[in-house]
């Protein structure tokens, strides 16, 4: 999973390196540019269950998904298949044969993110230790990313259209059927997009940017209208 510290490549960087109190404070003198907030909006960057906004008949459903465990498994060259097999056993499902796909059992979801990189999402946080123990150092590395990710569900009839505002991936069900997984960037934020069924998409988002993503998504969803549902467990 990528990092985005350099998301704004030329943006002012590393302001922690200054100790220069001389700068004048912004005056806020000029025109306001508060774009496109035609109606009262929910708290920015937070999903409030029950909230609706935007166009009258919401065509987007948003909800937070609770995740217990997210692991990244890095396998060494020439050890991909053994690791995939081991993960399949642990998850109780058959890991598909190449990156861009995932499968799931009742308790775990395991996906192939890249060559040598798997993701493992589990219903129980105890899975973290179990997977770590089950894999040998000579095969793979295991990184616990649970606290580093939040999960969101984007559903509704315009879910693909909403994501296509940012993502140049063809979400036509023939091109991106259930069981597909993609890494991409929305609003400079790296996400993993999982299509678990035809109804929508689940997104895994870096925690520090989840609020920013929600803020962007809810704004982007206004033209379709959206409804926020109660959080549910992802697995």
């Amino acid at each position, binding site marked *: 999973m990528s990092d985005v510290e350099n998301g704004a490549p030329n943006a002012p960087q590393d302001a922690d390196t200054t100790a220069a109190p001389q700068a004048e404070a912004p005056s806020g003198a000029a025109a306001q540019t508060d774009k496109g907030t035609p109606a009262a909006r929910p708290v920015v960057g937070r999903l409030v269950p029950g909230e609706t906004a935007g166009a009258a008949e919401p065509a987007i459903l948003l909800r937070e998904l609770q995740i217990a465990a997210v692991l990244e498994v890095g396998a060494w060259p020439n050890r991909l298949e053994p690791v995939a097999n081991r993960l399949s056993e642990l998850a109780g499902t058959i890991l598909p*044969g190449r990156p*861009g796909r995932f499968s799931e059992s009742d308790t775990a979801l395991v996906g192939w*993110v890249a060559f040598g990189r798997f993701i493992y999402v589990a219903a129980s946080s105890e899975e973290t230790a179990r997977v770590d123990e089950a894999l040998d150092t000579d095969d793979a590395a295991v990184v616990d990313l649970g606290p580093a990710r939040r999960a969101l569900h984007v559903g509704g009839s315009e879910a693909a259209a909403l994501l296509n505002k940012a993502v140049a991936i063809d979400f036509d069900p023939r091109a991106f059927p259930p069981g597909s997984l993609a890494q991409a960037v929305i609003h400079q934020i790296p996400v993993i997009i999982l299509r678990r069924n035809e109804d929508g998409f689940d997104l895994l988002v870096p925690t520090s940017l989840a609020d920013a993503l929600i803020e962007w998504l809810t704004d982007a969803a206004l033209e379709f209208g959206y409804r926020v549902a109660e959080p549910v467990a992802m697995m």
Partner: protein
Amino acid sequence: MRIDCPCCGPRGVAEFSYGGDGTLRRPDLATREAEPFSAYVYDRENPRGPHVELWHHIAGCRHWLRVTRNTLTHEILGVEMAGRFAGDAARIEGQGA
């Protein structure tokens, strides 16, 4: 411009970070002299036409790709995994999964 990532499929150029000339080979780790490194760090052929270059799929799978691209037309002539998983990728693709 779109690059057909061997891992992710065709993606827009904005997802990739350009890594420059892909034909350069870093001098051996043990090299102590500056000159071989100077050649590696500074000197470029900069061809007008087909160019083998590295691209990092930074907003996708984060693999480094070796892309052959015509610098005059921007036509992409070939894409392969640049690095340590190239063998795995070829094998897995070969299985026709």
